[in-house]
C-alpha cells in the first residue's frame, strides 16, 4: 500500500469524524436530561451524513449521496417525533 498524500488526508478527516462520534456517544451515556441526549443524537446523525458524503466523493458513487439525503430526512423525522413524544409526557398522545 502506497501512502500518498490523498490517503493520509482523507484518512485523517475520517478518523477525526469517527473520534468526534465516539466522544458524543460517551457523552450520551454520562449526561442527565433527555434533551441533552436528543441534541447529541442530532449531532451524531449530522456527522454520519458528512462521513457518507465524503466516502461517496472518494469512491465517486452517486448512490451514496442519495443514501445520505435519505438519512438526513430520517434524522429530521426522528428529532421532531421524539420531541413531540416528550412534550406529550411520554404517553404518545398529542
Amino acid at each position, binding site marked *: 500500500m502506497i501512502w500518498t498524500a490523498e490517503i493520509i*488526508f482523507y484518512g485523517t*478527516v475520517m478518523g*477525526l*469524524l469517527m473520534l*468526534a462520534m465516539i*466522544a*458524543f456517544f460517551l*457523552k450520551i451515556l454520562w*449526561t*442527565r*436530561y433527555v*434533551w*441533552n441526549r*436528543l*441534541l*447529541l443524537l*442530532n*449531532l451524531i446523525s*449530522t*456527522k454520519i*451524513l*458528512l462521513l457518507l*458524503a*465524503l466516502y461517496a*466523493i472518494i469512491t*465517486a458513487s*452517486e448512490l451514496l*449521496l*442519495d443514501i*445520505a*439525503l435519505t438519512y*438526513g*430526512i430520517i*434524522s*429530521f423525522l426522528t*428529532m*421532531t417525533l421524539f*420531541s*413531540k413524544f*416528550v*412534550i406529550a409526557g411520554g404517553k404518545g398522545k398529542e
Partner: protein
Amino acid sequence: MIIIGWIFLSIAMIFILFGVISIFVFKNLYMRIIASTIIDTVGSFLFLIGLMLLLWDGAFIFRIILLIGFIFLTSPISTHVNIRSAYLSKLPLDHDQRKSV
C-alpha cells in the same frame, strides 16, 4: 481545484473541533445550542463545499447542492423543536447540570 477543496475541508474540521470542545465545556442545555449551530451550519456548509470542489461533475454538484439546502432548512428546525420541548417541559433556564435540580 483539489488544493482549494482541501483548504475548505481543513477549515470545516476546525469548526467541527470547536463544536466538539464546546459540548464538553458548557454545563447547560441552553448553552449547548451553540455547538449544534456551529457544527450544523458552518461546519457542514464548508465541508460540503469542499467536497463539491474536489470532484467537479454535474450529478455530484446537483446532489450536494440539494444536500446543503436540505441541511440549512431542517437542522435549525430540529434544534428549535428540541429546545422548545425542553422549555415547555419547564426545565429552568439557568440550571447547572452538575448540581441536583
